[in-house]
């Protein structure tokens, strides 16, 4: 069994991992940068190691420092959380080579899913429908690309294989825009990722973002824990997530889940993972797989009663899954609002000292947050400061509790997105569940 885990992350997810370890009776080592040394979650850990100065490149992204910290503390495993090194195949490889357990999938899985073209090919082979597209890297022959685009049908999206965060992404309405778009995307991609490989996909009009959570162990067992809707996004950043995805017929959810489980078995996937899809109201189109725990795992935990982070650790410790697919049942509804330290309308980051923090409580309210009164939010890391998660026997109850919880939440000293969430929650279309990935920008008039 794993006896001591190094938490190679910070903020709310570091605290989340710490809580799971504590429940399992596993000792924790909190890694932290100089600026995070006074954080409460660092003090809650059994041990802590300062791994570098505030800039993430010198601390949380510093692979030798992370592995050395595991060595000097005699830890047995490393949990990467999300972001930072979580989807870095080279890191996973070095963790394993240094004799530690990497809490996540194999380096090969991470590498495959990190390359979007590879991921799509793998999943197509495993039987998942993908967005119609070039099915591989675009060549140099413009005429051939033109022909492919015509076959797919305009409008199309040009994407970077190494992409992420919208870089290299470009919408092409018709053939006249194609050549110029290709050149621009290529430039951005080679500048941003050092890799100019592009591919094409059909552009879907206002689809929903639906995802399937899976867990796979070392013994060939795999289960899916239902789905989530994460359509409320701004600038490709999820703001509100829900489980289950409302309005999806049960048989469709089951079918999709089963296909994901099959794909996992096919590719020998290990640990927790998420299959992301676009849903046009009829069909699901695979877009990518996240090979780590996600920010929004909480809503799935609420409706299934399964502790996903604990399961990750158990799987990494080579224990078989404790649940079979039959035992996974979805009860009620859960919603998560990501509270960021940002101005609610401009979304400009708002660093500063929180001089009063008071989280909401009561039935059906869960708070995952690393902040506290007098905590200082710096500009070094991302702006997620609290996840407010509510549960209800149905979506209406979960929504009502979320509105109540946001009304009770007190975070003074910095701007937060709370008011934006309240605005979204008050929208009739949102309450009726008529959402898609462009809902927020459209309804805010952008």
């Amino acid at each position: 069994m794993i006896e001591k885990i190094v938490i190679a992350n910070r903020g709310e997810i570091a605290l989340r991992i710490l809580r799971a370890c504590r429940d399992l009776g596993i000792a924790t080592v909190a890694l932290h940068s100089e600026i995070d040394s006074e954080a409460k979650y660092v003090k809650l850990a059994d041990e802590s190691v300062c791994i570098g100065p505030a800039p993430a490149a010198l601390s949380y992204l510093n692979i030798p420092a992370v592995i050395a910290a595991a060595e000097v503390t005699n830890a047995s495993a490393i949990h990467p959380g999300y972001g930072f090194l979580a989807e870095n195949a080279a890191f996973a490889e070095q963790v394993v080579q240094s004799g530690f357990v990497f809490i996540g999938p194999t380096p090969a899985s991470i590498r495959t899913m990190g390359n979007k073209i590879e991921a799509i090919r793998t999943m197509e082979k495993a039987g998942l429908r993908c967005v119609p597209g070039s099915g591989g890297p675009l060549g140099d022959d413009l005429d051939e690309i033109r022909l492919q685009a015509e076959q797919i049908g305009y409008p199309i999206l040009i994407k970077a294989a190494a992409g992420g965060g919208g870089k290299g992404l470009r919408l092409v309405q018709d053939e006249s825009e194609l050549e110029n778009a290709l050149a621009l995307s290529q430039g951005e991609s080679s500048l941003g990722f050092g890799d100019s490989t592009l591919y094409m996909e059909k552009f879907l009009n206002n689809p929903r973002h639906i995802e399937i959570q899976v867990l796979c162990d070392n013994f060939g067992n795999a289960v899916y824990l239902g789905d989530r809707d994460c359509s409320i996004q701004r600038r490709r950043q999820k703001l509100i997530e829900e489980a289950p995805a409302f309005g999806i017929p049960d048989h469709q959810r089951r079918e999709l889940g089963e296909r994901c489980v099959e794909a996992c078995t096919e590719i020998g996937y290990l640990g927790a993972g998420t299959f992301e899809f676009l849903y046009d109201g009829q069909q699901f189109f695979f877009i990518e797989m996240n090979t780590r725990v996600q920010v929004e795992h909480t809503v799935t935990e609420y409706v299934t009663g399964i502790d996903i982070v604990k399961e990750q650790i158990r799987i990494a410790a080579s224990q078989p899954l404790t649940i079979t697919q039959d035992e996974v049942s979805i009860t009620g509804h859960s919603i998560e609002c990501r509270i960021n330290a940002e101005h609610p309308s401009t979304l400009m980051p708002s660093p500063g000292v929180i001089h009063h923090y008071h989280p909401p409580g009561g039935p059906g309210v869960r708070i995952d947050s690393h902040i506290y009164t007098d905590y200082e939010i710096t500009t070094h890391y991302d702006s997620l400061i609290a996840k407010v998660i509510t549960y209800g026997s149905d979506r209406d109850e979960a929504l009502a509790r979320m509105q109540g919880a946001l009304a009770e939440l007190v975070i003074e000293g910095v701007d937060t997105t709370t008011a934006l969430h309240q605005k979204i929650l008050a929208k009739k279309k949102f309450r009726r569940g008529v959402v898609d990935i462009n809902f927020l920008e459209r309804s805010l008039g952008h």
Partner: protein
Amino acid sequence: MDLRKVRKLIEIFNASNLSELEIHEGEDSIRLNRTLTVVADQTTVQSAAHLPSDVSQTLKDIDIDDDPADDDGTFAVLSPMVGTFFAAAAPTDDPFVKVGDEVSPGQPLCLIEAMKIFNQIEAERSGTVLKVLKQNGDPVEYGEPLVILSE
């Protein structure tokens, strides 16, 4: 307006020996004033909550030494990385330095092993070794003091 902050500020102000404090922050500002009524000659003015009772001069005469420089002529060599401390290149070797040694810039002081790689930590300036804070095999964090030198 955060009353707690105001209260805290007054506390700090009281504990100080200032007569006025003015802070501007963006559009906000706060001004605290403690007018010591000026009295005629040959008098003692006191204003603070915690003034020693034998103070016999006016405020401006009081020497404020808020942050006494910790300048005792020593400095610490900090670890530039996480790892394991080694005082010598091999178990049977003599340590790179011992207390009382004179060191010059670039001279190796110890090793920090991280990921099976031994990183040599060198003196940045010259001095005398006052103290070696770690022993062979000790884990060290980023920024932890390893060796104290005196100039």
